């Protein structure tokens, strides 16, 4: 396993961002799902060795980040939640700048690698354009390009599709799927469709802990026989899905018929049942 996390705890003041979290991830794309404040970004930053945990252990690529941080960083690609760019730089200049931070000192070899990753994310045509002149989707692709420098074995993506339109998100799925071939990708996201389409494994976080670890199919299975479609709004887990059509999770409302569950149904049901009774 490329990522092994046990009993991870991180506290900010009195708030537990992570509270005894454990999970593992291997080759392929592993999705991190969870509501806002569940601890996804804190976890990604810990895995990126940007933060140190208060308690717990991590093994990343077989190494301990407490003692072998540099060795891990040499095999790591990271796209933060809000990747910043030197907006006056061209695409090439920015990726080249990150390549230097990744210790690629030889100019010719480094430039070849920069061209390779820019080409891989489909930005070769705008390589010489200033970042300030690019769309949000293109900037997100620059984020992926810099993360792929040096062909890292572990890639961490913190909400890479946030703020993208549907078409751009579909393109990103291709990109992330390709990035997940032969390496470990940890994808933190709110987009359940992305997890369903991309991930071999999914970890659901809530209040700093893991409430589910399995495949998207298993997550969907949680709503098997508990998903209903009817004409009436009934219960707390009922949502409007069309004109006069309501989708209900849990106990069947009167007159409703069973429906095929989705990964989102399983996720919503899981979060609802993991919540303290008083907040349901």
């Amino acid at each position, binding site marked *: 396993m490329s990522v092994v996390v046990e009993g991870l705890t991180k506290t900010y003041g009195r708030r537990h961002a992570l509270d005894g979290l454990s999970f593992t991830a291997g080759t392929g794309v592993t999705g991190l799902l969870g509501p806002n404040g569940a601890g996804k970004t804190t976890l990604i930053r810990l895995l990126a060795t*940007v933060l140190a945990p208060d308690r717990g252990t991590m093994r990343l690529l077989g190494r301990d980040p407490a003692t072998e941080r540099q060795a891990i*960083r040499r095999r*790591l690609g990271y796209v933060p939640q809000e990747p910043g760019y*030197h*907006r006056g730089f061209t695409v090439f*200049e920015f990726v080249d700048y990150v390549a230097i931070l990744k210790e690629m000192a030889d100019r010719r070899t480094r430039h070849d690698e920069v061209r390779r990753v820019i080409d891989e994310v489909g930005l070769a045509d705008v390589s010489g354009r200033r970042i300030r002149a690019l769309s949000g989707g293109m900037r997100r692709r620059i984020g992926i390009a810099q993360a792929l420098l040096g062909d890292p074995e572990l890639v961490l993506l913190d909400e890479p599709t946030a703020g993208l339109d549907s078409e751009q998100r579909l393109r990103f799925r291709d990109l992330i799927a390709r990035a997940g071939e032969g390496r470990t990708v940890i994808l933190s996201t709110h987009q359940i469709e992305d997890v369903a389409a991309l991930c071999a494994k999914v970890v659901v976080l809530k209040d700093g802990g893991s409430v589910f670890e399995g495949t998207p199919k298993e997550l969907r299975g949680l709503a098997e026989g508990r998903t209903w479609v009817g004409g009436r709004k009934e219960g707390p887990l009922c949502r409007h899905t069309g004109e006069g059509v309501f989708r209900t999770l849990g106990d069947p409302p009167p007159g409703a018929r069973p429906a095929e569950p989705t990964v989102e149904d399983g996720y919503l049901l899981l979060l609802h049942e993991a919540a303290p009774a008083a907040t349901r």
Partner: protein
Amino acid sequence: MTWHMDDGLATRYADGDLDATLASSVEAHLLACAPCRELLTPRVPRARLDRVWEEIAEAVDSPVPGPFERALRLVGVREHTARLLGAASSLRLSWISAGALALLFAVLAAGETTRWGLVGFLALAPMLPVAGVGVAYGRGADPAYEIGLAAPYPAVKVMLMRAAAVLATSALPALVIGLAVFGRSWAVAAWLLPALALTSLSLVLSRWFEPAHCALAVSALWLACVAGTNLGEPSLAMFGAAGQLASLAVTVVSCALLAARGKKAS
């Protein structure tokens, strides 16, 4: 079009055996003639084409260094180090010249060669490097800061290299302004140790706080100290032997703490 290439001409062109005039003529013709291009293509070695293409891509893509980066390269700084330094906003020509001009105008406004003018100069000059260091590194100053934190290149090293470069680039104009306005006097250089002390203290504090905030706090503290010794009449007490010794002590302790931090990070 009055002619086309034959096999012999194509082979000689591909081998580079044509004189410059004939080669230019062939190239002008090739631009407009698809059959001749097809004739030439199999005669050009693939490896040579790849090499030429790589050289073109390198020439087109390579970042164009700014004036500061070029100056660094001229004095022997390696290309990738110059790139890392040149990315800091306070190491751009606009910042360096703006800082120097602000200092010059402040001194002129304070009465040039009067004692108040000298106190004003000595109080403001150390703040140039402190401000420069404050915006050279950190979450607020470097857009790629978070990405850099997860990269193997030591973040402390980037911070210290930029701080050293900022010190050098702000000290030079301040010394020139001092000499130009006040003439040759020990007092013109009396701000150097305080500048080192304030900058190193600011760097130490950046371990816990945003560097720009550290620079602001350290500058405010410095100005308060200078103002406190100049309540009635202009005084150079902060720049005398005792002041210099205090600055030296702060510098030494701060540098020791920074060295320990650098060692721990590496």
